[in-house]
Structures are given as C-alpha cells and as structure tokens.
C-alpha cells in the first residue's frame, strides 16, 4: 500500500482538515462522513470566519492549532464571511499554499466565479440528500487525501 510508485501516501500521520462551518447539522454530517470514509482524518471545526483565521494564525487559544492539510470553507458565515476568509488565506504568503475548497449551499454563478478568481482550489455545493453528501465527502477524501500531493509533502513551513 505504501509503495511510493503507486502514488499512495507513505507518511501515516493524521491528515488535518479544518472545516469552517456554522451549521451544527452540517458539521455533524461532515464529521460522520469522514469517520466512515477515512480514519486518518483529524477534523477541526471553526464556526465563524474570525475563529478560522485565529486557528490558521495560531492566535489566542489556538496557539497549538495544527496547520491544516486541507480547508473546507462555507461561504455564508457569521462575523467574517467565507469570501473574506478565502481572500485572507490566498493573500497570505504562508497560508496560500493550503488547498482551500468551498463547500456551500450557494449555487450562484457569481459566487462560483468569484471564488475561483480568489483562487479557491475547488468549489463544491452541499447536496441536500444524505447519500449524495456521503458521496461528496468520499470523493473529497479519495482525490485530496489519497491521490493529491499535499503541500506538507514539501515539508511543513
């Protein structure tokens, strides 16, 4: 399984995922889907944009927060909006290399284009159906956490 030629990950430390999401129901669905999909994932949650930025910058109570390998970011958030969080991540020299995926209910074309302009790594819509939601998390896990070379493979900065 860990043959480097197969493209599989050989480093077995946990995969740190930061979920920025204010809906407790969606947090629970995402957590359950990851538990069923990939037991190496360590999911941290920030419930608004200000908390997300404090986590990412290791400020205050987040002094020991791990650097995420992947960020899943909702757009509509209290305090600091997801669009602003995305812009802050992608204009920060240290944070910008972290793959940041929008995961939102918004289907507005303007949100999709704006997110890609701000250099979101991908834009996903939350499906309403539970099995479609599970499929989506499985696809994220399969592509991003199994196939992709994450920036950590270039050494943590």
């Amino acid at each position, binding site marked *: 399984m860990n043959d480097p030629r*197969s493209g599989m990950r050989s480093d077995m430390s946990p995969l740190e995922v930061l979920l920025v999401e204010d809906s407790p129901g969606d947090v629970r669905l995402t957590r359950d889907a990851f538990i069923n999909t990939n037991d190496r994932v360590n999911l941290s949650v920030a419930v608004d944009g200000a908390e997300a930025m404090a986590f990412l910058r290791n400020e205050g109570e987040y002094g020991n927060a791990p650097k995420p390998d992947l960020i899943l970011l909702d757009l509509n958030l209290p305090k600091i909006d997801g669009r602003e969080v995305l812009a802050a991540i*992608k204009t920060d020299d240290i944070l910008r290399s972290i793959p940041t995926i929008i995961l939102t209910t918004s289907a507005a074309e303007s949100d999709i284009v704006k997110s890609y*302009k701000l250099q979101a790594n*991908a834009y996903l819509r939350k499906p309403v159906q539970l099995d479609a939601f599970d*499929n989506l998390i499985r696809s*994220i896990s399969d*592509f991003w956490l199994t196939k992709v070379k994450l920036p950590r493979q*270039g050494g943590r900065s």
Partner: protein
Amino acid sequence: MANQSQAAKTRWAILIKNQPVRVLLVEDSPGDVRLTMEAFRTTNADVNVNVATNGVDAMAFLRKEGDYFNAPRPDLILLDLNLPIMGGREVLASIKEDDNLRTIPTVILTKVEEPADIVSSYQLQANAYLVKPVQWEAFESLVRSINDFWVTQVQLPQEPA
C-alpha cells in the same frame, strides 16, 4: 465501484450544459498523452480532451491565438511541469496572472515529485498537484478520481463576463 446515480447526475449536468466537459492536457510525452486519453475514454466518454505538447502551444490555445483562434475554453487544465519551449511552471504562472484564465482549475500532473516543486506549484495557485503513477491500474484509478471529483462533483466556473 460505479455509482449509477452519480453517473446519471453527470450525464444530466452535461445535458443541461449541452456540451461535453473540455479538458486541456498539456503534455509532451506521446505515451502519457495516449494513456490519459484512454483512461478518460474508459471513465467518461463525455470528456473531450485537447492536447498541447508544449507551453507555447498551451498559451496560444488558451488565448485563441494563431491556429487556435477557434479553440474552446477548457473547463479543466492538466499540466505537466517539464515541457519543451516553455515550462509548466511558467505556463501555470501565466494562467494564474491572467484575469480571464485564472478561474480555470489547473491541476499539475507530472512525474516530478520534488518537495520544492509541490510547494511552489501551490504557491503559484495550482488547484491541485498529482504525480503520474507508473503502473497502468494506478494511472487509470487516478484519472477516475480526477473525473469523479472535477467532472462529477465540482461546480466549474463559466467564463468571467
């Protein structure tokens, strides 16, 4: 494992858009071009793959210059790093500095596994970084993951107005 409802959803999404999903593959190795095209053919027949074999051709294709005046705008770019004439890093930087092109998801697909290349590609805002597996089964599985994530799940952007 094939998922009928996802496959149906993909077909439906394509019907709504009334056009295939267009992938621009920037790759100079004829063998890798062939493998990628075969893997897409067996994974999703609705994916239309165009090929540019060096960086200059890729930029001409994307900017609809010269022979490429009629080239379609790709929905997704798969970009090798080591290319003749103009390298993949330069192509990536050019795409991501261009207001019109930067919204196109650009995924690095390369044999290069240097940590410095992985980090610098993400710094240049590559949407993802993939290493080409040597084994055919692993290659096919990789293309299936690309298709499942980028074609089936992701909301791809339309051209900015």
